[in-house]
């Protein structure tokens, strides 16, 4: 691995963690997943084509590593006769501010989506990848990607509507006083 690739890999760590958190819904497992993916990536760095997007390539490694881990976990769970489902709502947030409440409910809503839909939402909505890039990362055809996306978005719209009709962000937490002109 050359210095530039190494530096870029460190620089995209926050985004890798974000994607992993979306997949695992749990910070500790997210970091474990990113660590495993980084080790894999370093070991097979010669498979990465310099000039192509390092982030997409690593998203793919995270995705496949996660699937492998889920499968082996499911085997273990099947052994016990129980298939664990959707350990959701791991964010124990302070319920103080309206904005964080709303963002919390968005996160929870995303957390309730099936794994494959959640991966699509994380890549397209959160990471801003194009459909083509996302379908490459997930190694699925475009048609599959778009139909998952439609299902995911429809479900999110429904869940959030049920929870609360009003989705406005109503505090100054994320707003610069001057940048957004909210000074009273």
């Amino acid at each position: 691995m050359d210095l530039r690739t190494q530096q870029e890999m460190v620089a995209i760590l926050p985004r890798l963690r974000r994607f992993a958190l979306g997949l695992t819904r749990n910070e500790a497992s997210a970091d474990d997943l990113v660590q495993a993916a980084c080790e894999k990536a370093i070991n097979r760095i010669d498979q990465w084509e310099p000039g192509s997007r390092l982030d997409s390539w690593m998203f793919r490694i995270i995705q496949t590593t996660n699937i492998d881990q889920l499968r082996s976990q499911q085997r273990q769970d099947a052994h016990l006769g129980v298939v664990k489902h959707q350990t959701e709502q791991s964010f124990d947030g302070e319920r103080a501010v309206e904005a964080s409440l709303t963002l919390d409910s968005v996160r929870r809503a995303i957390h309730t989506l099936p794994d494959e839909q959640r991966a699509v939402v994380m890549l397209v909505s959160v990471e801003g990848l194009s459909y083509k890039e996302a379908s490459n990362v997930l190694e699925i055809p475009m048609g599959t990607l778009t139909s998952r996306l439609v299902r995911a978005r429809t479900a999110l719209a429904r869940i959030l509507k049920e929870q609360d009709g009003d989705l406005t962000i109503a505090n100054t937490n994320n707003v610069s006083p001057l940048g957004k002109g909210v000074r009273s």
Partner: protein
Amino acid sequence: MITLDESTLIAYVDGELDAGTVRLVESKLNTDQNATQYVEQLREIAALSRIAFNDTLHEAVPQALKDVILRHSIQDSTAPNSNVVSLAPRAKNDWKIALPMAAAVAFLFLGLGGGYQYSKSTTENALKLASLTLKQDQSAMTIALNQALEVNMSGDVQTWTNPDTHRSASFTPVRTYQDKTGAFCREYKKELVMAGQAETTFGLACRNDQGQWNTRYIIQDNSNSQSF
């Protein structure tokens, strides 16, 4: 003719349609209130999804995770002898350059060490230089902090570096609110690297009418102080 079905509208919101189709969709949206509402909802959900996962972007990456990558030695494929390009990100050489400066600064802080064997003029010059650069750096950092508090969104980092003195700092507004008098106050995180030592402090600053942010209190985070 195009129909405004869900997948078309979703692709429209995601910017996945070509310009011609975008025009068709937009002209149809003008007359279709339900579809317009749906598009707005989709946009809102997309924006909220992005913000909802932003916390991870702004929190510090665990060092252990960085080390997974950094502990791998660099092999430069262009140079057969990798020793030539031993530019590990944490350049140990920084120590060598930073040490004399650290010594000079230590002098300044500890008072004059009379027992030292340096010639008087050399010591004085070093002290003068250190004092001057320290003052310059401090005022530059004050400006950078003011800038960060004035324009940065919470979580966005403002960095300042002086390569000559090897001092650097980053300022990150963390939270914004108004105090009883209506003045804007922001909590911020300051990470200072000086003489090879990293130091993290948290402060609260409030804005006066002239646009100056005055720090009201500072807390030092000792748990995180680490040397380079």
